[in-house]
């Protein structure tokens, strides 16, 4: 569809109820823990209470003696010889020689009831030799830090660094020293962010069965069941093709459900228990201790700016730990941190560091919020020092379509300028501020992703359509895909069903990650629909006995394309579908690809807040999200993504963090103490959807899920500075920290 055809859209851009909504609000939707099978056993996992310990002995005698205990597994039940990320996944699934973090699985048991399984888990005796541990990223790469795994570094790491540094990167262009020399003001600061968890409401849950023949089935709450299949198969040394994985409804993921945790354990337990299904449901404290939070970061940023706000050079050196395995998103953090700025001289250095914490997983724009906190805080500070308007400085340095990104390649179509202009026009910038109140502003970025995508759609005999996608719906993608398919077919929204189907039903799909579901599955669904339309036109042409090319599809019907094609009344989809059994059989469409044309998304946030000067407590007064959606297929779910990203970012900025005790054990393992914002903490988050259509998508879609978590971290720090004059460089800015800073003022 051409860009200028958008004004003719009937459904795209409207806000119908989501197809999964009624089931969710009435409790009919089946989530991971709702699934059960006859003869099912319950699994429980024994977890290390130590941050770093050699596993000397595991004695399951007492557990195995309990009546009703059907299987006990340890690492000895897993294949050996894995390498690379497969080994990392296996080691994280079940500890081998050493437990690498508090909560690391060391054994698992299956029994006839949940209580019995938990009792048996308590009876498994593990002898540990406790080793020195390290939690903080800077401490982990300092001389003398405990070595978590020798030889884990890859080829990029130069000689002479601590063995906990496992990846190193460096990139940039121009001459940063010359650039700093041109500046009127050069500032350099160090920033830190703490690890946070995605905080999805639904804990991980799965039911698996695997027979002696090596064939397995699994029902699991996940963002990507093909990933679960591939990773579980690798970890267990089985054929992925023998494993069929069905996704359940999902209660949040935010990146944290794109990988495996206890899923292979349930398969291994089932196999050892003679093929009986095994269900494992994590508790909240298991989720916080042993699934993947995000990385923590320590970051140095140096920027040079002229008196009129032109950035002459920029340098970032980021150190991030992503737990006891390689994979902290330091690369993404560096790519995104200066992405909004047109820079001739820029240099980036990154270290990926091991620490005795759980293996990090993706979390909404992984790395980008950390980097934005550092860079956007410093830009704000420099604007204030030079007496410049922070929005104007972003406009002055801001990238536009075709500019070279700070990380190398040139940008395709982007809408940063349009976002900044929309911020300037918003009334919140004029709202009066009282005593101890402040306003903060920051910009954020995410690339967005395409990924392997396979979609099928079929026309029903009644002229409706059923679409099968492989990307679990974590943000309203079923509604958006239904709108796009209905628009393309020219039929009502209610006539399109969209189902997330199992691994046996489609080609490989990457998970719903990288803000890709509405972009990639949506684009593929439109392509598949076009294929079905072509077939329907062919059926009409055959009926009319005219050329296939002489038929066009308009408003849900085939019609002769122009007066020369023939004079027939339009043949509706219902008519064609009703007799398809006699005209050649079922009509369907498929599309498989890694769709090109990904559109990146910039956003900018404005926060007004108040600081209680006696307690350091921060109250968010007003919050504005402005972001480029390309085109909002279903504006309510775009707004939902903007608001959700902002809410998570506010939590990260103010109160969320992994708190470890001196033994390296996680102290705050329940939501009571892992302080995500509650509804009453937040004002209604205002949104402005900017639409700079992405030419790479038939309806102009850009992914919108991730960018929104990026600006809140610096925007809040900047607002706090505006309110009370202190510059907070270490998140979270919780009341004890802020009060201490106020007293030191």
């Amino acid at each position, binding site marked *: 569809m051409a860009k200028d055809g958008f004004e003719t859209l009937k459904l795209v851009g409207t806000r119908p109820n989501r197809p999964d909504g009624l089931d969710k609000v009435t409790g009919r939707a089946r989530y991971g823990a709702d699934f059960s099978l006859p003869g099912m056993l319950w699994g429980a996992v024994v977890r290390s209470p130590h941050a770093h310990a050699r596993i000397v002995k595991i004695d399951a005698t007492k557990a195995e003696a309990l009546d009703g205990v059907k299987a006990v597994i340890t690492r000895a039940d897993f294949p050996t010889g894995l390498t690379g990320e497969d080994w990392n996944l296996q080691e994280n699934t079940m500890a081998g020689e050493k437990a690498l973090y508090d909560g690391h699985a060391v054994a698992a048991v299956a029994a006839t009831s949940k209580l019995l399984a*938990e009792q048996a888990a*308590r009876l498994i005796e593990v002898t540990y030799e406790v080793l020195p541990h390290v939690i903080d990223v800077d401490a982990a790469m300092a001389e003398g830090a405990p070595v978590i795994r020798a030889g884990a570094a890859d080829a990029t790491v130069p000689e002479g660094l601590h063995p906990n540094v496992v990846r190193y990167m460096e990139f940039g262009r121009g001459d940063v020293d010359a650039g700093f020399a041109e500046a009127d003001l050069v500032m350099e600061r160090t920033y830190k962010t703490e690890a946070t968890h995605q905080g999805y409401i639904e804990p991980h849950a799965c039911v698996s069965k695997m027979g002696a023949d090596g064939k397995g089935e699994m029902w699991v709450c996940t963002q990507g069941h093909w990933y679960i299949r591939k990773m579980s198969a690798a970890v267990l040394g089985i054929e992925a093709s023998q494993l069929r994985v069905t996704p359940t409804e999902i209660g949040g993921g935010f990146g944290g459900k794109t990988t495996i945790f206890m899923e292979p354990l349930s398969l291994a337990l089932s196999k050892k228990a003679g093929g009986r299904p095994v269900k494992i449901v994590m*508790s909240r*404290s298991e989720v916080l201790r042993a699934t993947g939070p995000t990385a923590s970061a320590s970051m140095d940023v140096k920027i040079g700016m002229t008196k009129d706000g032109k950035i002459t050079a920029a340098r970032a050196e980021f150190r991030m730990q992503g737990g006891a395995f390689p994979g902290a998103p330091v690369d993404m953090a560096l790519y995104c941190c200066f992405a909004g700025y047109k820079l001739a001289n820029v240099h980036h250095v990154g270290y990926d560091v091991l620490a005795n914490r759980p293996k990090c997983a993706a979390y909404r724009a992984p790395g980008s919020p950390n980097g934005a906190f550092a860079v956007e805080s410093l830009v704000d500070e420099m604007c204030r020092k030079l007496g410049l308007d922070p929005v104007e400085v972003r406009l002055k340095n801001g990238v536009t379509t075709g500019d070279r990104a700070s990380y190398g390649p040139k940008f395709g179509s982007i809408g940063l300028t349009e976002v900044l202009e929309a911020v300037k026009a918003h009334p919140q910038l004029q709202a009066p501020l009282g005593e101890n109140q402040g306003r903060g502003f920051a910009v954020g970025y995410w690339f967005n992703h395409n990924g392997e995508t396979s979609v099928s759609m079929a026309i029903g005999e009644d002229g409706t359509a059923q679409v099968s996608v492989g990307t679990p719906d974590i943000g309203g993608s079923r509604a958006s895909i239904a709108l796009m398919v209905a628009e393309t077919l020219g039929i009502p929204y209610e006539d399109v069903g969209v189902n997330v189907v199992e691994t046996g039903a489609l080609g490989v799909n990457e998970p719903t990650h990288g803000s890709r579901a509405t972009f990639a599955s949506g684009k593929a669904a439109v392509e598949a629909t076009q294929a079905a339309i072509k077939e329907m036109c062919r059926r009409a042409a055959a009926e009319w006995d005219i050329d296939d090319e002489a038929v066009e599809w308009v408003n849900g019907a085939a019609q002769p394309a122009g007066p020369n094609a023939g004079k027939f009344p339009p043949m509706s989809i219902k008519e064609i579908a009703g007799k398809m059994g006699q005209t050649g059989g079922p009509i369907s469409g498929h599309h498989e690809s890694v769709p090109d044309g990904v559109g990146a998304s910039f956003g900018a946030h404005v926060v007004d807040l108040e600081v209680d000067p*006696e*307690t*350091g*407590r921060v109250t968010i007064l007003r919050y504005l999200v402005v972001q480029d959606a390309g085109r909002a297929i279903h504006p309510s779910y775009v707004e939902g993504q903007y608001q959700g990203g902002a809410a998570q970012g506010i939590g990260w900025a*103010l*109160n969320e963090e992994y*708190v470890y005790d001196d033994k390296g054990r996680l*102290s*705050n393992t329940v*939501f*009571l*103490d892992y*302080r995500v*914002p*509650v509804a*009453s*903490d937040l004002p209604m988050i205002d949104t402005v959807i900017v639409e700079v259509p992405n030419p790479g998508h038939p309806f102009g879609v850009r992914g919108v899920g991730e960018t929104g978590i990026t600006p809140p971290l610096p925007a809040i720090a900047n607002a706090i500075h505006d309110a009370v004059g202190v510059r907070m460089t270490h998140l979270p800015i*919780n*009341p*004890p920290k802020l*009060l*201490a800073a106020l007293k030191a003022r």
Partner: protein
Amino acid sequence: MRYHSPTDFASASALAAGASGVTRFLSGGTDVLVQMRAGMVLPDDLIDLKKIPGVSDITQTAGGGWRIGVAVPGIVLGAHEGLKADWPGVVEGMNLVGSTQVQGRATLTGNLCNGSPAADSVPGLVAAGAVVEITGPTGVRTVAVEAIPAGPGKTTLAKGELISAIVLPARGDNAGDAYLRFIPRTEMDIAVVGCAVSLRLSGDTITEARVALGAVAPTVLLVSAAADAIIGTTLDDAALDALAAAASAAANPITDKRGTKEFRVEIAGVLAKRAAKIAFARAKGETA
């Protein structure tokens, strides 16, 4: 696990006295059931008190005070106009516990017996001068609320003893109380510091006061020095500063996941001032 549902307190006491393993009393269950689910406490004997007649009642005592049954949930306290008029600080403390759902079950007695130094309802009871009626193997005795907590998760109740009611004294004239807690969020959190103030006025002068602090020591503290700082004053700025200093001086907190020692010391003073102002306004008849 054995589940018991006695119909009088003497039987409940006898069951507990005769039990040999881990014993828990069950009323609202908002602590006990959660601890059981988390595997933290696995009782051998669980004694449900809700079948005992009168445990869900709030009744006025002969002296004009209030007798609150051990199974009265927070939501019922919050809906009781007479109790709220007399002891708004006690009621607001209880009503801060947990969520709306938790309020439907959680009780004052349970909050006290859970033994948390951060229990939101306890400072208000202590400031109010409330007492508890204890049924035990040797009969019934009455002690001050502040004598019950013995440290985190511990009480001074002996084996076989259980609380059979909480009794608030008559409020009397020209008096008011208030409870404030500090949490970084707005709800669904545990007090980092809590403070209750109860006072009586003669004209604008404070003639009686009790100040209690939560979450700044192993037990809830009754801080007489803080009360002394405002008795005889009109709660002027000097008195408020003296109150804050006394509250901070009495605080003896630890640094943990919920807040630092230094922060808690400071906030004890801040909350004492703020709570005292509210109690003062209430004593003046303002509905703040």
